């Protein structure tokens, strides 16, 4: 189905950045629970992340954004991942599970949406943060000291006295800091943040974003930020990739994507969100709903909801082609000879 797609060379990070991680033709199939068949959640995705670059991956439910992120770290044991995932020149998909454990938490770390469910309820937070180091052979006292240092860096109140406390004794915002500390203590070069602020109240979300912004700037940490919230993207990322039904439909700098969205989906999405700083009489509404992965429309998956769709959109999956300021996968641009 995606064989007829043409890749325009290999994907590159944003300007002025050297490539840290790259996915080429990344495809993820998930087994369906009953029966032996599987569903293609991610369908041949290419992208690159530069050293210290902050990239947002935007998508709705079923777009495959979280599955893409987990596939980079090979976190999901049931998923069948194919294509290439390069990190600092190595193909992660070719590594053994044992080698992969060195990459996880060491080179690439991850923070998750709901901090409570991502913490072990029966282990103290000190032990959980230090575990990343203990796995790598750091001594007990040393690991504890470094865990404390990171918790302090993330401004966890009274971290020293609370090392032996359990997750249920922390508030939502503090828990997210603990999860962030767990990720940062191994000094990774790429942090994947999977909707880390979605479950939080706006004020706490603001604090956590601030912290993330601060830490990534100070440590030169690359961040892949997965979210459905365009507001968060605009304030945090340098580059945006938009996913729809398992494929990347647009990729570009935040400024160009927000100012001149190339894909009708991106354009609709930006217009459909009410804004705190503007009064509108009526919102633009994209008709229909995002398709589930097992009922992906033919051709461009967005065509049933697109008001600009024409014949090729129903037939062919559009190639991701370079446009000014980035890339887009839309037949409108292909026919204009971009």
């Amino acid at each position, binding site marked *: 189905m995606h064989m007829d797609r043409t890749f325009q060379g290999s994907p590159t990070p944003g300007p002025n950045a050297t490539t840290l991680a790259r996915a080429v033709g990344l495809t993820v199939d998930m087994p369906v629970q009953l029966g032996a068949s599987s569903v293609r959640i991610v369908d041949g995705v290419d992208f690159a992340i530069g050293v210290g670059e902050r990239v947002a991956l935007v998508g709705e439910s079923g777009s495959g954004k979280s599955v893409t992120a987990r596939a980079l770290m090979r976190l999901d044991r049931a998923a069948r991942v194919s294509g290439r995932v390069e990190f600092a020149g190595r193909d992660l998909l070719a590594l053994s599970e044992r080698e992969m454990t060195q990459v996880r938490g060491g080179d690439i770390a991850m923070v998750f949406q709901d901090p409570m469910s991502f913490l072990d309820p029966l282990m103290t937070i000190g032990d959980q943060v230090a575990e990343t180091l203990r796995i790598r052979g750091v001594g007990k006292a040393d690991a504890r000291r470094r865990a404390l240092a990171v918790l302090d860096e993330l401004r966890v109140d009274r971290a020293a006295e609370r090392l032996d406390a359990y997750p249920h004794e922390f508030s939502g915002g503090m828990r997210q800091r603990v999860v962030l500390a767990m990720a940062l203590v191994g000094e990774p070069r790429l942090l994947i943040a999977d909707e880390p602020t979605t479950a939080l109240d706006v004020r706490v979300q603001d604090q956590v974003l601030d912290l993330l*912004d601060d830490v990534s700037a100070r440590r030169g940490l690359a961040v892949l930020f997965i979210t459905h919230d365009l507001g968060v993207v605009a304030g945090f990322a340098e580059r945006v990739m938009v996913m729809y039904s398992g494929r990347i439909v647009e990729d570009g700098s935040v400024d160009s994507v927000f100012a001149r969205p190339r894909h009708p989906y991106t354009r609709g999405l930006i217009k459909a969100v009410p*804004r705190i700083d503007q009064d509108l009489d009526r919102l633009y509404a994209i008709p229909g709903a995002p398709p589930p992965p097992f009922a992906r429309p033919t051709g461009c998956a967005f065509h049933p909801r697109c008001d600009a769709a024409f014949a090729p959109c129903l037939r062919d999956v559009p190639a991701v082609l370079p446009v000014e300021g980035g890339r887009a996968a839309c037949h409108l641009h292909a026919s204009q000879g971009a």
Partner: protein
Amino acid sequence: MLLSVDGLCKTYASFPNPPVQVLHDVSFGLDAGQALGLVGESGSGKSTIAKCLMALTRPEQGSITYDGTDVVRARGADLLRFRRDVQMVFQDPYGSLNPRMTVEELVGEGLLVHRLEPTPAARRDRVAEILRTVGLNPDDRGRYPRSFSGGQRQRIAIARALAVQPRILVCDEPVAALDVSVQAQVINLLQDMQRQFGLAILFIAHDLAVVRHLCERIVVLHKGRVVEQGTRAEIFGSPREAYTRALLDAVPVPDPAVGRARRRQLQHQS
């Protein structure tokens, strides 16, 4: 005033934990045809207010008056009239529709309970009409909720509420669980219904941008207390309370230039 809430207090007890007071002296009013926004973070008590308003739970102090009726103490025919005039749309479009009822049964249940359409045929026509109004195909009335997407289910929920021709619609986070690209459809539908039927809407949400878009008056809640209330222009243009300002400042704006400016401002402060 169509609905007025005065001095509401509510405490939840869960022995052996100490009781938690979730509402402290909450008062506000809703005029006919008006859209009122109730905003607050988690733990602000906004959902408890909805439960009290719908007479699903009883506040230990304060009064709720609807069109001359004391809702807290209403019984029998008074309560039934209230239950017809005030309808509710819930957050979770998956849990708020009985999975074992067809669309027709769901939308027609209010007509049945309040004996609004005497014959099954009349009920069926009324259901078809209301389904068309909310943008659903009447031919789908024999299907079950599970075969609809989240946005469509929310339309069914709205149709179910509107079938009995209420005067007030209480919406508890009706778009929070929907995909971004679908939220606008439901927001627009609510707006259309308000204008078309002269409905009063009590819109409970944590998303200030949606509230700004939909509501003429806004009540800001924090830890079970009303912090500030006023018109849209007052709350968003010149908030008086520091809490309201902090809340507004924290909302991310989908504009990179604004985002960068805010970053610079924060760095400057620290």
